[in-house]
């Protein structure tokens, strides 16, 4: 049985706007160690913006981010990656000309000896290190059951497999927090089942904390320990799946009943 621990990441009163468009308004959210947190909400609710704030692609105008006890105004992508936050993207962002193996190897770059230049000059030890990392990557490839496509350029793979390779690259970073942006979008039932299994295994075997965005409610209710619901850049619910499912505000947000205080066209950011 896994034990959900203290918050590993806390965002406090985060606000983010692009010009006059508000993507996030004063959102506070905790991600606790070892949990699977699902972020849900209608399109444009600010879910992806939230992930982008967490891993440093966006700088919020207000609020703070506390990662493992250290509070910042914002993250930088390099910082986030170096400190154990890995992610995947809504529209797969792989290195399309490179093979599966090479793509996943890029996830090890930060774990290789820090001094890039030194590595470039110092061949012997560098090669040994490369081999050690290679072993690790092969283990991930086995885990994700993608041995057969190791040497294929990922641009040629079907979408579902690309998503899997992307997950592999994130895993190769040995992250403490894994951010998954719609890991099952565009997948068929079988692929979704596989992906669910991988996510649960990662969470259980490696104890990796996972925050994911997903639209498939069945999946969300099945695999997540906690669900946060965003709507128009605000958080409208946060709790165990069973509770969130029956929250009137959540139902209103999804079904668009008159409980919704926002007229259509009220500011919201890119999904």
């Amino acid at each position, binding site marked *: 049985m896994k034990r959900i621990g203290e918050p590993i990441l806390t965002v406090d009163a985060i606000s983010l706007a692009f010009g006059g468009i508000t993507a996030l308004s004063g959102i506070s959210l905790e991600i606790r160690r070892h949990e699977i947190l699902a972020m849900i909400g209608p399109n444009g609710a600010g879910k992806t913006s939230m992930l982008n704030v967490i891993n440093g692609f966006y700088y919020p105008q207000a609020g703070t981010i506390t990662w493992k006890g250290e509070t910042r105004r914002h993250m930088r*992508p390099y910082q986030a990656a170096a400190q154990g936050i890995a992610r995947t993207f809504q529209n797969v*962002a*792989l290195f399309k000309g*490179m093979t599966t193996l090479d793509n996943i190897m890029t996830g090890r*770059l930060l774990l290789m000896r820090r001094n890039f*230049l030194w590595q470039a000059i110092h061949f012997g030890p*560098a090669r040994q290190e490369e081999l050690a990392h290679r072993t690790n990557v092969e283990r991930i490839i086995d885990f994700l059951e993608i041995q057969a496509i190791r040497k294929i350029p990922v641009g040629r793979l079907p979408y579902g497999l690309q998503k899997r390779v992307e997950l592999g690259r994130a895993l190769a970073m040995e992250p403490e927090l894994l951010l998954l942006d719609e890991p099952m979008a565009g997948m068929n039932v079988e692929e979704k089942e596989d992906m669910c299994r991988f996510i649960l295994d990662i969470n259980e075997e490696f104890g990796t904390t996972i925050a994911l965005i997903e639209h498939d409610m069945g999946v969300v209710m099945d695999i997540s320990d906690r669900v946060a619901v965003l709507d128009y850049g605000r958080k409208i619910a946060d709790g165990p799946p069973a509770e969130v499912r029956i929250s009137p505000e959540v139902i209103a947000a999804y079904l668009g009943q008159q409980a919704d205080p926002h007229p259509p066209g009220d500011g919201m950011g890119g999904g």
Partner: protein
Amino acid sequence: MDLLAAVFLAPIANMASNPEFVLEVVIGGLLAGVMYSLVALGFVLIYKASGVFNFAQGTMVLFAALTFVGLIERGVPIWGAFVIAAAVMVLLAVVVERLMLRPLVNQEQIILFMGTIGLAFFLDGFGQLVWGADVHPLDIGIPKAPLIIGGVLVNEFDLVAAAVAASLVAALALFFQRTPIGRALRAVADDHQAAQSVGIPLRSIWVIVWSVAGVVGLVAGIMWGSNLGVQFSISLVALKALPVLMLGGFTSVPGAIVGGLIVGVGEKLAEVFWGSAFGGAIEDWFAYALALVFLLFRPQGLFGERIIERV
């Protein structure tokens, strides 16, 4: 009929009757080709790392050579001038990254390309402002005497230039293809955002690549400058690098080398043996005609990554 004979028969007969002369022309072409390769390399490095065609590469070659020759004229010894000029190119890389690449991160490639056009104009003007617009003769002590090796006439300067280029290329190949930096480089070229998400320090990679391209440009500038004098037409050698890149492929370091050699040999042979059939001066346009043929039949070049893999 006369034209056909002049194109297809006479040159072949001419070549067959004088094989030693052909060899001489080929060697001369190879050595000249190395110089093209050197310029093309600068393009390839930056293209690989940022997916952008650096329009300013030719101007960078000129600017580096101007800095080098300017320092020598002010009494700085050659090695000192080389080190300082290299440092200036590294500084330039830092400035380019800070002022041009960083604000344009994640933008379309065409926008970065426009940025490099702006950079070309800026460097052009800035170089003239600092070092003046005169032609500077440059002599770094490479002997230019003709040598006879095995009965073949070779220019000693060309030999030295070829040796310098070859060792530079070998070093670069090791640096970029046998180290994790190579992988990081390709990753950055493929997808900025994804590269950032795995923690590749985009900015350092860019500074490294532009610095290396700058130093390669410096070497190319010194070599061309010793031959022709350092003058503004040097920035036009970059135009000769274009057909080299089309032959070799924009993404391939070996491609730049082989492409340069093919262009060098091709245009020398064409000039000497086919020149009279076309009224001479083939050398100036032969490379472009060859590149055109390649564009028709093998658009990714000899060594470029197959485009189908990048869709």
